[in-house]
């Protein structure tokens, strides 16, 4: 056992936020090391440092390979040192062939420089494909491959550069069970050939089966490292969660009413044919209740509520509102049934950047502010001003452009849009993402205020303490299925995380 890589005392700051604090990890030759942790624990940041995406002068600490200090100021430097990265998002050239992708930037040349030696290129490509057990022609267009084939191709491509260290970030999120199995076999095979791997995954069952050592990160710090011999799954989860649930959030308990929404057997297809991002999910919700949907990134949380809202297509599933079956195929249907959706990314799908606050707030309430198609602008101003004041939006006036506001106030504007349309059921996807603490508390207050008025609320949040504190009841998704249902009384972070990582 020889140490081939050491990352020593890495500290990385983004402005005032410390993403990594004094993190040290080691990697030995022929081993597979797992990096696990919650969303935002710092795994990806650490790997970006290793890959040279963050240049050597942008952080503190050292990278030592085989006893030699390395300074990567560019991804090319890391590649030359023998580090290859496989990311969750596949980056291949869709309109090039398999062979061209494998040889990208390193095309073998004929004796006349500038002319490609296609014969040799194909030969090398076939070699790479065999290595990962991928049965496609070298001159097939990458666009025609399935997502899992693309994932294997990226690995094959990386292997052709003869790396010493292979880093895989959530490589199985696009793979089916069988393909995952193939990938694991390949990785074990690589290990026996002296290529070490760093394996990042949310799926602890895979991690436990595959890896030799597990390093747990939390809040940018290394919490613990386990070897296969002393591994205790429960301890790993405890380390991932770590914090004690404190009552940081002033939970307001409200009297719940009748059932507002019931969703039955929702199945939502994913972009990968034959795989569902949501599989047979059912849940229900009362007036005044706040239901938390948990799970790790990619578990299908957003897809579930987007499908219920009609924003993305479902394969099957029924929706009942106040006990009556309703058909919701597009957002217009959902809005007609007094639903609202605050999306994960307010810039992409929350507000209209070219419009002012008034126009943004009234966007879903044309019926209330118009008569026979003509806008009643006096009515519009009055009605939007009511929301503007109620939510305490900090802006000079309702005629201010929405882009001039802070993230928290922009989020309030998006909320105001749904409040103005008088929603009875509100879906909140990461309502406090990228918002400062003060504004967060204001958003919680708005949520509780709505619940008091009898609005049924579904909330998604990657911040577990926040979710646990705000919601009355929880469902936890993992790989598109509901893996756990908990009440506020029985839930713990450990329980939650077990369900989310599929080992409950």
């Amino acid at each position: 056992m020889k140490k081939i890589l050491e990352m020593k005392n890495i500290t990385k700051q983004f402005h005032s936020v410390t993403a990594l604090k004094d993190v040290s990890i080691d990697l030995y030759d022929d081993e597979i090391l797992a990096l696990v942790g919650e969303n935002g624990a710092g795994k990806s940041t650490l790997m970006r440092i290793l890959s040279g995406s963050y240049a050597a002068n942008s952080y503190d600490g050292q990278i030592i390979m085989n006893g030699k200090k390395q300074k990567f100021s560019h991804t090319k430097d890391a590649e030359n040192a023998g580090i290859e990265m496989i990311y969750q998002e596949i980056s291949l050239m869709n309109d090039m062939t398999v062979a061209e992708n494998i040889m990208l930037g390193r095309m073998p040349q004929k004796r006349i420089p500038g002319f490609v030696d296609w014969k040799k290129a194909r030969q090398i490509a076939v070699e790479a494909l065999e290595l990962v057990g991928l049965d496609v022609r070298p001159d097939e267009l990458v666009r025609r491959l399935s997502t899992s084939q693309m994932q294997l191709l990226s690995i094959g491509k990386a292997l052709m550069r003869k790396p010493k260290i292979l880093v895989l970030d959530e490589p199985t999120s696009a793979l089916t069970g069988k393909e995952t199995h193939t990938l694991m076999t390949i990785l074990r095979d690589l290990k026996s050939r002296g290529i070490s791997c760093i394996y990042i995954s949310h799926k602890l069952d895979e991690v436990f089966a595959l890896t030799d050592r597990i390093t747990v990160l939390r809040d940018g710090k290394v919490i613990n490292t386990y070897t296969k011999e002393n591994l205790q799954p429960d301890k790993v989860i405890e380390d991932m969660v770590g914090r004690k649930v404190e009552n940081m959030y002033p939970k307001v308990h409200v009297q719940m009413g009748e059932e507002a929404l019931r969703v039955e057997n929702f199945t939502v297809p994913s972009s990968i044919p034959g795989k569902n991002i949501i599989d047979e999910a059912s849940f229900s919700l009362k007036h005044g209740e706040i239901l938390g949907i948990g799970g790790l990134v990619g578990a299908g949380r957003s897809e579930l509520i987007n499908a219920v809202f009609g924003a993305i297509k479902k394969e099957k599933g029924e929706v009942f509102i106040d006990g009556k079956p309703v058909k919701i195929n597009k957002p217009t249907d959902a809005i007609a049934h007094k639903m609202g959706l605050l999306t994960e990314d307010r810039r992409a799908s929350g507000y209209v950047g070219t419009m002012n606050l008034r126009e943004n707030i009234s966007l879903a309430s044309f019926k209330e502010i118009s008569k026979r198609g003509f806008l009643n602008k006096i009515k519009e101003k009055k009605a939007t001003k009511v929301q503007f004041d109620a939510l305490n939006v900090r802006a000079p006036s309702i005629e201010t452009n929405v882009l001039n506001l802070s993230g928290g106030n922009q989020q309030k504007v998006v909320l105001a849009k749904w409040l103005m349309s008088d929603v009875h059921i509100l879906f909140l996807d990461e309502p406090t993402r990228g918002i400062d603490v003060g504004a967060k508390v204001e958003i919680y207050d708005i949520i509780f205020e709505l619940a008091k008025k009898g609005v049924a609320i579904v909330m998604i949040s990657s911040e577990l303490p926040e979710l646990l504190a705000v919601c009355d009841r929880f469902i936890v998704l993992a790989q598109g299925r509901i893996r756990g249902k908990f009440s506020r009384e029985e839930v713990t972070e450990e329980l939650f995380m077990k369900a989310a990582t599929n080992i409950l």
Partner: protein
Amino acid sequence: MKKNRKMLGKDSAIKRILGKREVGILIPLIVVFVVSGLVNPLFFGYQNITNILFQSSFVFIIGIITTYVFILGCMDLSVGSVLGLSGVVTGLALVAGLPVWLSIIFGIMAGGAVGLFNGFIIAKFNIPTLIVTLSTMYIARGLCEFFTRGNPVYPLPANFNILGQGKLMLSESFGIPWPVIFALVLGIIGHIILTQTTFGRAVFAIGGNKETARLSGIKVKRTTMIVYTLSGMAAGMSGILMASRLGSALSNSGMGWELNVIASVIIGGTSMFGGAGSILGSAIGAVLMTTVTNGMAMLKVSVYLQKVVIGVVILIAVGIDQYNRKRSGMKE
């Protein structure tokens, strides 16, 4: 009360006028007017001013709806060909002896059909609007040539020709050409629909952020189809007026006009990125384009240089617009 007005976003009248986007391009228009007028006093003559407005109206009638198309974040290259097609359809109907009103309806419907086709393909198949309307630009022009075999369609009846050639006489010697009146009426209707209706608001919202609009319950596909249909109809109206003006429907009528229309709308400050624009701006843009050409002719600048100047004017207008956007903090 005063404070309340302020809170509702009412600024003083002067500030509001100066804050309008159209002001930026009014300045070059005034400069061109003053310079032309100083050099050649005939420029300000009733005859010449009427002539400028007359020439501008054909572009502007199309530009009204092209403004909608741009605000939607789309593009319509087919308008020049549709202009020709509608003229030809109306012309053929007239020559076949159909009544004037029915021939005009046929012409407008032909334009609307091409527009609806554009809108349908764009909404249904999500193909870039540039490509879809490029195809229909060829298709519509091809149909023109096919129907006429390249020959002009004439003679057209006198009671039809009056639309493009006649004037609304306000006194013995003072009259306004009918196309100018049509352009004015259509422009006002277009402005009201854009600024005062939910439909207009939907167009702005879709152009500003399609996904937000969709998730807020705005009917994106339907709105897109309506706008494209209107675009075809507007091009049709302009084409019918053009045939009437010439007393003859030509298969090559309106060739290259799509670029004139686009230029006038851009000069008018409407963003090609969607979400912003105004009919008033497009009106000023159309008049500015004509005035530059007209003014240069009066200044005896070589005909061959006029396009150079138009190109420079477009760059300046867009430059001013970009500068204003940056200053107001609207990056996208």
